[in-house]
């Protein structure tokens, strides 16, 4: 018992030391940012990893239109994207309602529209629109990319079937980073690690 006490004490002593170091190293702080600024940056990145079909309007148009339908959760976070140039095209942001979502290349469906998600997917699901959301209910309705939070970091799932339906090709690189929407559980049961 004495031997045990001796080194439990040592370990606790160590613990305080390590904590002391922790308090000192405040400077090497993990970079933090607002949730929607990170999601905006992801949207900006996604454009580089998605292939729109060759005959689509996207290829010939000089702009990329990102539409937010319903209550906009991004607010200022999208200011960084406005008027940026991606893949030789200018980014424009438009705010739409669920009844009128024409002319979008990327469509973000926020939580406020979760009841309309099915309707939205029906109208644009077969056109080459990259649909994105961040609510589970909307992901189930056929949205292509869905954000979720895991251990305080932004992650996303990709619904390959929905992408195929929309005629969009998702780069293997993006697929690798995503949780694939189909059969996320027990992949080893089908030898998919």
């Amino acid at each position, binding site marked *: 018992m004495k*031997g*045990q006490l*001796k*080194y*439990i004490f*040592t*370990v*606790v*002593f*160590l*613990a305080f030391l*390590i904590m002391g*170091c*922790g*308090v*000192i*190293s405040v*400077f*090497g*702080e*993990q*970079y*933090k*940012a607002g*949730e929607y*600024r*990170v999601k*905006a*940056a992801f949207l*900006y*990145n996604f454009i580089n*990893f998605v292939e729109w079909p060759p005959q689509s309007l996207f290829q010939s148009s000089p702009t990329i239109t990102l539409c937010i339908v319903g209550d906009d959760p991004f607010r200022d976070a999208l200011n960084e*994207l406005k008027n*940026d140039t991606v893949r030789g095209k200018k980014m424009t942001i438009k705010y739409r309602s669920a009844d009128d979502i024409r002319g979008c290349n990327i469509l973000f469906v926020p939580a406020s529209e979760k009841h309309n998600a099915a309707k939205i997917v029906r109208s644009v699901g077969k056109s080459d629109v990259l649909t994105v959301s961040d609510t*589970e209910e909307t992901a*189930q309705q056929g949205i292509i990319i869905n954000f979720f*939070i*895991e*251990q*305080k*970091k*932004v*992650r996303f*799932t990709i619904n390959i079937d929905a992408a195929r339906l929309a005629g969009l*090709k*998702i780069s*293997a690189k*993006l697929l690798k*980073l995503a949780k694939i929407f189909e*059969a*996320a*559980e*027990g*992949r*080893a*049961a*089908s*030898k*998919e*690690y």
Partner: protein
Amino acid sequence: MQMIEVLKGILLLGAAFGKSGKQFALSCQLIKTEKGVLNRSWAVLILFSALLVLPLPVYADNSNDLKKLSLEQLMDVEIESVYGASKYEQKVTEAPSSVTIITSDDIKKYGYRTLADILRSVRSFQITNDRNYSYVGVRGFGRTGDYNSRILLLVDGHSINDNIYNQALIGEDFIIDIDLIERVEVIRGPGSSLYGNDAFLAVINVITKNSSNLTGVETAGAAGSFRTLKGRVSYGSSFGEDAYGILSASGLDSKGPHSLFYKEYNTPGTNNGVTVNTDYERNQSFFGKVGYGDLTIESAFVSRMKGIPTGSYGTDFNDRNNRAIDQRYYLDLKYEHRLDDDATVTARLFYDAIYYWGTYVYSGVQNKDYTNGQSVGAEAMYSRRLFDAHKVTVGTEYQFNIKQLQSNYDVSPYQLYLRDNTRSNRWGIYAQDEYSILKNLIFNGGVRFDHYGTFGSTTNPRAALIYAPVETTAVKLIYGTAFRAPNNFELYYQVPGQQAANPDLKPETITTYELVLEQYFGKHLRGTATAFDNRIRSLIAQQADPDTGVLVFKNTDKVEAKGLEFELEWIGDGGYRAKASYTVQNAKDQADHTSLVNSPTHLVKVNLTLPIWSDKAFAGIEEQFMSSRSTLTGAKTGDVYITNLTLFSQNIVKKLEFSGSIYNLFNNKYGDPGAEEHLQDIIQQNGREYRLKLMYRF
């Protein structure tokens, strides 16, 4: 900036180490050990050496432009305190099996020390321990004396069942440190239609962390009951957009209970049944993984020394030299390429090695088992979507056993009893089709043909029908067979007068019928009900020749195991989680219709995670009940109730994780059935145990 902080830390620690160093020198005893094993001060030194590592490149803190970050870097950005975000929910699964998943989050919150601890919480799994190895029983089948060769244990898809004993090691002898585990997938049922050998009762796939969840330098230290110390240093980093690397080293030193009492040895000649300082355990393990685009190279090594206090195999009681040293190593090269949305190709090359030393002391003379196995192999797999409704997978695997050496000898005076070295090979070819007959009706059929140099060939199919009448319900009907090849030990190990070889052994077979119901109730609750029927034939069992008493392995037994399982899982917002499962099962030997040894009729498992302070502190509670089991003499072990409690905290102090665990909280006395090699009918297990663990990320 970074350097100054690290240097300050080192200075502080140096001062402290000076003070406590003396203490350590006093309490550390250098014990003469077999080659390649650490003494306990090394375990702590590994912890300290982390501080000497140079600081890592962190992206410039003045970069407000998130757009400049790559995808991988974006995935590493922490968002400001998100309170109440629930974990991603997995909807009705399309897997052709009943699957349980344990995450690294569970590992931290329930204080799991080993894979064995993890499996103790899994529905219809049971773990028994004889103070040498931990053994898995699945769905009522877990006879004493089996070496976990009926479960296939994979690490990132790489099989770690060795080529001599086909043993899956799940304790501190498991090749991966528990902190490196990202996720464990437990896939019940026969898996030979895809995986071949050993996928008899279940396939367990352990997925290790990659650089998105292990970045920078991480150190961990733990102290626990029975003078146990464990240390780890890990380093993870990404290099550009495509590459990443992980390196990790761990060490463990446990003295074990100071003394154990066995009434079977209670005679003056055997120290009145008291064995002192013989239940020790030490290990060291290393892990490395490098990913570059589609290529991953992974390598791991573990060395574990375990004192054997039970006097098994008639060895001298209370002799510290009775021990087992297990070493495993593997190197795996994997290439995984997505050809387009519809097809993937995977190719693997692997090398495995096992080294084992068993020391048995008889009347003061040390008898040693020395085993060395080495193998190389390759696997290729191609998966593609055909005609929209079919997802077809085909693959082939080959393994060449370069060396399968078993030997047995007395050390001094030297006498050789066995030296058997064989070479063998095996290959397999498999195919699977996942056919979406309707949008909510899937047929999953697969078959694998295996050819073994030792016994010939075997074909194993699996068929499953998965129907989801509504989005929240799934019904699965599963049929499958699997095999377990006789291993090198069962085939060729022989010592004159004690054990005879049997090269004519045939593989064991299992046929499983399973019905699974999965139901999602709303957003948070999921329920599962399963009925299973396992029919096992040609079980390889050790038999004693009635005249000579010489042991030999034979294909003799026939077992049928049937049962029902129920499970409810609730995932709430804010980190609340609850899971409860109940299994009722019956495993009978078909020859005499008696229940199997070590087969509990009832298993209950409850897991609860409660947030105590937002996302900074959690309590993890486990309740495990196992009903009474039969022993080899027909006695009963009695019911077992175990309660475990863990308090886990993160980021109360930045980047620090701290946990305290109490295992077997109510200090219940219980034992597990002994095997043929034990004089003990029931081997007493430990009472209450503690652990304190710290993890710090630089």
